[in-house]
């Protein structure tokens, strides 16, 4: 009796596959805990939109180090090297997270400081609104060129007493209102009166008066002091009015009467 062993081709293939997979199993390194942690650290950070948005460069650096760790593990380098690279990768992921939170905090800070400026402005306006103002001078349109908002040198001279007064009374607030006559569109006039009021304000600031003490507003053509139907009336309406806050210790000096 002859023992006959015959292999079907299909069973040959399966034996080959089993053999191959045994080889592969033998070759693949045992899992490394540090590498696994680095992978999951990286994956979590990469899935965090804030990190992606604010620290993509750091995240990329972490990814490269993680890849080095993967390569070292694949090539079956000694576990010290895999541990080392995995540790580096994890720290770089942490760095990306820290950078992301730094950037986010910086943004918050910037938003808040804009908000603070706004609150401060509102506070100052509320403060000014509480004060009682009296008009101390009206500057005629000789201050400016027709239709322009550049102070003429003759106009500047009219402002010197005001500067002196404000320097001597450093608690006083000053309010500047620009007015026009009714020729031209009301929008044009509003804009022109604003620019003229601001020109006076800017002159006071360059003369050393704190911007905190000054408010400047264009009133347009809506507050005439005379008729707009005669040229003399219109000239009176083109003006910059200056008000100062009334307070006991800041009396208007006699040298500083109604201007013009």
């Amino acid at each position, binding site marked *: 009796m002859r023992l006959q062993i015959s292999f079907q081709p299909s069973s040959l293939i399966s034996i080959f596959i089993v053999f191959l997979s045994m080889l592969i199993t033998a070759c693949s390194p045992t899992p490394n805990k540090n590498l696994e942690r680095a992978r999951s650290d990286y994956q979590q950070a990469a899935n965090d939109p804030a990190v992606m948005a604010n620290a993509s460069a750091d995240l990329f650096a972490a990814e490269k180090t993680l890849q080095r760790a993967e390569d070292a593990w694949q090539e079956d380098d000694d576990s*010290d*090297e895999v541990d*080392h690279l995995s*540790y*580096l990768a994890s*720290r*770089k992921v*942490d*760095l990306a997270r*820290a*950078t992301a*939170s*730094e950037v986010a*905090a*910086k943004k*918050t*800070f910037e938003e*808040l*400081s804009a*908000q*603070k400026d706004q*609150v*401060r402005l*509102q*506070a100052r306006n*509320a403060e000014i609104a509480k004060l009682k103002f009296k008009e101390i001078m009206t500057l005629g349109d000789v201050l400016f060129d027709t239709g322009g908002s550049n102070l003429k040198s003759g106009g500047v001279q009219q402002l010197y007493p005001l500067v002196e007064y404000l320097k001597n009374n450093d608690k006083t607030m000053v309010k500047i209102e620009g007015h026009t006559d009714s020729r031209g569109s009301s929008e044009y006039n509003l804009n022109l009166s604003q620019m003229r009021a601001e020109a006076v304000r800017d002159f006071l600031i360059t003369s050393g008066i704190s911007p905190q003490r000054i408010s400047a507003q264009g009133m347009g053509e809506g507050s005439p002091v005379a008729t707009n139907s005669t040229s003399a009336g219109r000239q009176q309406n083109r003006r910059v009015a200056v008000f100062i806050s009334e307070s006991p210790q800041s009396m208007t000096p006699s040298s500083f009467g109604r201007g013009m």
Partner: protein
Amino acid sequence: MFTIKTFLRLGPSVAMISLLLVGCASEPPKELLSQAEVAIQNAERNGAAQYEPALLSSARTKLDQAHREVDDDENEKGARLAEEAIAEANLANAKAKAVREANQADEMKKAIEALKQETSR
């Protein structure tokens, strides 16, 4: 133009260079040691001693250890420790900066609240 062909031609020399680099690993990692020193000083300047003392001192310890390994001709160990010191110092630096930014934002928030209260009085 950089093509696959040039890459293939360059391949062997790249391999040579990397072999050389591996060979260099037995040289003292002076560059890494000084980089670690700079990274630690950077972190100190940004307040890491105050905000991230543990991480900063770990970086310092690893750098000291790295120096000792290099003195004992254990250059590869020294290089690894120096690299870890750099990573830790950079992390301490970034964390300290993040905390400082967050503190500044908090202070700004308080300042706004104070300003608002002052106004409403």
